[in-house]
């Protein structure tokens, strides 16, 4: 079963912000849209959360077409990139406001609100005005709020943008624990490590298009088992492609990136073959390499 289905969604502003995007998100999984700033991630999130009307295409969220706004809205929770809290209300009041807005009965509210606050570790702060909160606390409160009405699908737009390492790890934990309860998570990020550590499926988005979609491991496997970066005085890569074990050679500036199957055996051959080596770096592949390979550009 799929929690989100998108078929050739398109949205034009001055440029094509979303350009015929299609994908499916499995129920109970974490799906990440990875891409640089301006790739169209926020616009796509806006379309799926019924805030932006697509120019064309079709999408279904939690079993309802995005045209049925109210039905979709009842079943989703959203955490926006910019904070969307009322800072003149306390943490608890923000959640109560939300719960009542979603039509929850008093008994449900009394049950769900304390447990949501507890999930993100803010139970001691429930009666403090949000204006006194730090950025990380606000983000945690927003995640708690988006979950109060028990949505089927949770949308998180850059959930850890600008947060410190400790808070990021906490938020990853909350997201994972929500997934374990059966919630489908759709998130956008431009942090490669976030997509790698957290997500079941990653879609790489660039200039309004999804250029690749798959499990993190699968995407990495396509690149081979390892990567060698060699900085040369004068780049001459003509002879490299014929070496045994070399999958791919990419040149950017004076740095040659070689994707290969067996780094240990290849290195001695490279040293013999190439003159004027200034530095060598060996690395196992990550999503950044995938991005570079797919778009020909470095990830910012």
């Amino acid at each position, binding site marked *: 079963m799929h929690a989100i289905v998108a078929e050739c969604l398109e949205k034009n502003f001055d440029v094509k912000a979303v350009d015929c995007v299609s994908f499916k998100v499995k129920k109970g999984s974490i799906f990440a849209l990875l891409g640089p700033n301006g790739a169209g991630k926020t616009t796509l999130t806006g379309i799926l*959360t*019924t*805030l932006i009307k697509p120019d064309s295409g079709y999408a279904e969220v939690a079993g309802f077409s995005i045209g049925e*706004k*109210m039905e979709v*809205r*009842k079943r*989703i929770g*959203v955490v*926006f990139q*910019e*904070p*969307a*809290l*009322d*800072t*003149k*209300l306390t943490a608890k*009041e923000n959640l109560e*406001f*939300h719960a*009542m*807005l*979603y*039509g929850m009965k008093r008994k449900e509210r009394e049950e769900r609100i304390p447990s949501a606050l507890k999930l993100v570790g803010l139970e001691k702060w429930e009666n403090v005005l949000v204006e006194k909160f730090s950025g990380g606390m606000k983000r945690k409160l927003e995640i708690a709020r988006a979950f109060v009405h028990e949505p089927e699908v949770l949308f998180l737009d850059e959930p850890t943008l600008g947060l410190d390492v400790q808070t990021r790890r906490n938020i990853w934990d909350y997201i994972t624990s929500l997934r374990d309860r059966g919630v489908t998570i759709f998130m956008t990020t431009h942090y490669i490590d976030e997509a790698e550590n957290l997500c079941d499926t990653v879609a790489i988005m660039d200039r309004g298009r999804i250029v690749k979609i798959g499990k993190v491991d699968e995407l990495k496997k396509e690149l081979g088992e390892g990567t060698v970066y060699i900085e040369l005085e004068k780049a001459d890569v003509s002879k490299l492609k014929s070496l045994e074990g070399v999958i791919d050679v990419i040149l950017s500036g004076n740095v040659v990136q070689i994707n290969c199957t067996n780094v240990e055996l290849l290195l001695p051959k490279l040293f013999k073959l190439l003159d004027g080596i200034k530095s060598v770096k060996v690395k196992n592949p990550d999503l950044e390499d995938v991005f570079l390979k797919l778009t020909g550009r470095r990830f910012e």
Partner: protein
Amino acid sequence: MIQVYVLWLREMKRLVRSKSRFFSSLFMPLMFLLFLSSGFSGVKFQGIENYTEYLTPGIAAMAVVFSSTFAGLSVLWDREFGFLKEISVAPVSNTAVVCGRIAGSATTSTLQAMAIVILSIPIGFSTTLYGVLTSFFFVVLMAVTFTGMGLVFASVIKDFHGFGMVMNFVIFPLFFLSGAMFPISKLPSFIRIFAYANPMFYGVSGMRLALISNCLSPAYLLISLFFSVITVLVAARAFERI
């Protein structure tokens, strides 16, 4: 209904937490009232027996109109601070959102009008409880109309600069054309026509009749009701674009 209630409740909580804002918004109308009524106390206006008596309902209406327009425009703050998104992604109709906001601002405005009427008693204003209660019809209808108008403007203007424009080019002219400070019969006839299209004119006139003569004018009430229904409908449509 619960959604209208919770939006109203939010406005009330914010009001209680920023009491100073409530009192400072009373300051300007009170200055108008004190200085104009004492400054003109010796002046004889044609057709007006007691200027303080004439002016008080007008200034109470002024407080209502200014604060409710402001309340409508305050949706701009919600947009600036992101809170509007929380509301726009919730399963709530635009009409409910608009009604919640109007309910909140109507409550605030009624409190303000009441405060001005009470504070004007020491400077020589007299009315009856019946008069005050009757005038509330007009207070509420004006609050509805001008909150709705504020929401409509908020959907048109994009930033805070537009805010001052609305105050200068819309609200002040409507105030001067309402008969709040002087009878519109003193205005040149080609300007007076605009007064008859001014919802505040009917609100002020209705309040004055209620507070001074203890009577409820059905004509003013119906016209005020008409204006408020129209603006709510327009505001609910306009809100989609905010």
